[in-house]
């Protein structure tokens, strides 16, 4: 592995191609990023009742996330403490316990070892079950319904980890009733590096008019007007990056814009009806964000399009493969009919057979696969759009750039990637961020 300052250079604008290919770098990512960061697990709406559970992934680790009797949520590794076998093979469900199919050890929904067959005879009653529970995910927290977990007990709180991104997301998370995700998730395979789709969602407005030209032409919603890059202007939105590595681009007044016809009209009417509440409780800026269309990523591998309402996690499976998990994001208080219409449009655009999904998938794969070539992968790739023009905007967290078509949030993502890959402690990272802010 090359030194970090060679892997990401020029404030995030240059990346060494090896970060999309190298097995060594990938293994270090699993250690310094996936085993330390807050990773998306599920939404509370998907495990509403006691003993509801979902099988999820944290990096390449299989994890069970379960609703507890006291209403809390716990997560633990899906691997028996006896011989290591998985104890749960279902995507999701409601259970009182998990029994390992190998020897019948029984674990409670909190991960504790409850029963060991023939405990009194073959173990002579002296097995210490309290030390043999399933390995717990160190911390599990919910941010307004979005449930994340981290393996690192030293990680900052979820709220601090989200930093300024939480403030922005409150624009749609703090509506009455909040949001929910509709599942079960679609799952598919992309043979790409996990960072390619994260960077695409966090800040690649540039590809929209070209890569998706055909889909936008036939989809027919107002967003279709960006089908020609000539329609772009710098007042059309903003791009935002926060020091925690998250970011997004927003197109003003376009939340419902990718939904054609009656769906777009019904969704826009819903937004009009709710916007006053957002303005009253969250202020003018966040009403503007509530009305906008977002392309966003939460570091490291969770992305969403607010408005189009696709919600995705890019699960890493080696340096050049991922599983794509896709849910639909809706407001909980929307009429059931509107939720269904939005889910249908998410399916048609960014589902496994979505007409925009297929445009992106091909690009994600080829951006990485070409690096098989020894000479090809010697070089670097470039993210210089709008560099040096980032600014502070009073009242808004992070760095702001004009126009939703920019690469500032993508640079921010790679700066954060390099910081975490250093392996420096959370305390050291926070100290450095404070010094930077003061300077």
């Amino acid at each position: 592995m090359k030194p970090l300052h060679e892997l990401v250079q020029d404030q995030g604008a240059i990346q060494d191609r090896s970060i999309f290919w190298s097995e060594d770098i990938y293994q270090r990512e699993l250690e310094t990023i996936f085993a330390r960061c807050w990773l998306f697990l599920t939404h509370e709406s998907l495990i509403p009742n006691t003993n509801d559970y979902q099988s999820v992934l944290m990096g390449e680790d299989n994890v069970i996330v379960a609703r507890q009797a006291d209403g809390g949520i716990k997560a633990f590794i899906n691997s028996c403490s006896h011989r290591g076998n998985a104890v749960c093979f279902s995507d999701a469900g409601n259970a009182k316990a998990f029994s390992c199919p190998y020897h019948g050890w029984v674990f409670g929904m909190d991960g504790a070892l409850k029963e060991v067959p023939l405990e009194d005879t073959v173990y002579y009653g002296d097995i210490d079950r309290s030390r043999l529970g399933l390995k717990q995910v160190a911390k599990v927290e919910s941010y307004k319904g979005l449930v994340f977990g981290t393996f690192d007990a030293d990680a900052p709180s979820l709220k601090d980890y989200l930093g300024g991104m939480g403030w922005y997301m409150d624009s749609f998370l703090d509506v009455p009733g909040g949001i929910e995700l509709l599942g079960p998730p679609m799952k598919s395979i992309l043979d790409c590096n996990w960072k390619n789709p994260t960077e695409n969602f966090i800040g690649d407005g540039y590809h929209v008019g070209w890569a998706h030209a055909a889909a936008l032409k036939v989809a027919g919603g107002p967003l279709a007007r960006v089908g020609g890059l000539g329609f772009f202007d710098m007042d059309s939105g903003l791009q935002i990056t926060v020091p925690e590595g998250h970011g997004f681009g927003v197109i003003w007044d376009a939340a419902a814009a990718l939904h054609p016809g009656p769906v777009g009209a019904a969704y826009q009417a819903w937004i009009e009806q709710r916007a006053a509440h957002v303005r009253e409780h969250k202020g003018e800026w966040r009403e503007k964000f509530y009305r906008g269309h977002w392309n966003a990523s939460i570091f490291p591998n969770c992305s969403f399009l607010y408005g189009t309402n696709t919600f995705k996690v890019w699960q890493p499976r080696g340096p050049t493969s991922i599983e794509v998990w896709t849910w639909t994001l809706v407001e909980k208080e929307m009429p059931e009919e509107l939720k269904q219409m939005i889910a249908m449009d998410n399916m048609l655009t960014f589902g496994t057979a979505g007409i925009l999904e297929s445009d992106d998938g091909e690009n994600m794969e080829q951006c990485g696969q070409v690096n098989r070539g020894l000479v090809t992968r010697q070089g670097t790739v470039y993210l210089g759009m709008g560099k040096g023009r980032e600014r502070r905007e009073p009242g808004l967290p992070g760095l702001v750039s004009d126009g939703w078509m920019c690469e500032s949030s993508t640079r921010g993502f790679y700066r954060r990637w390099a910081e975490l890959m250093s392996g420096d402690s959370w305390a050291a990272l926070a100290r450095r961020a404070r010094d930077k802010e003061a300077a």
Partner: protein
Amino acid sequence: MITAAALNNPAQVGQPVDADTHFEVERFLVREARVLNDNRLRQWLQDMVSEDIHYFLPVQEVRYQKDQKPIGSSPGAAIFNDNYQMLDMRIQRVETGIAWPEDPVSHLRRFVTNVDAEWSDVEGEVTAYSNIMVYRNRRQRDQAVVYGGRRDRLRNVEGRWRLAARHITIDQRVVLDKNLCYFM
């Protein structure tokens, strides 16, 4: 010609169709596969699909047997849940000539087997079950195979069969390919 349109006997609902009708159903499904393999998508839609089509492919799930909630019953849990206009939109996209992933086109080869047709309770319709295997090859050596089962409603109108509904079950929880942007 004996067709389903000629028959409406309640006693026969769910019973295998007669040999002549079975032959017509099987020929329709094989012909449909050839039209799709040849990438004649517009012709497929116009000549073989009914305007009230429901084309449905729910998200497959892996759940314990005691969990009896039917697959596809959750809101938002479909990969295809299309009507005629949505199928048309997917085809229009390819027809623009600027859908980059479709140029060069994928090589697609569909295999249809295990055709089993029954009389339906709707006059002029049969229910046809079949297995489908789709091999896809893209670019130089990019390949995937998807297996599934289909339950179709085929309707005979004035001697011509059309697809009135298709319910596809795929035998993969994680779709082992980058997308399912083709018709099965």
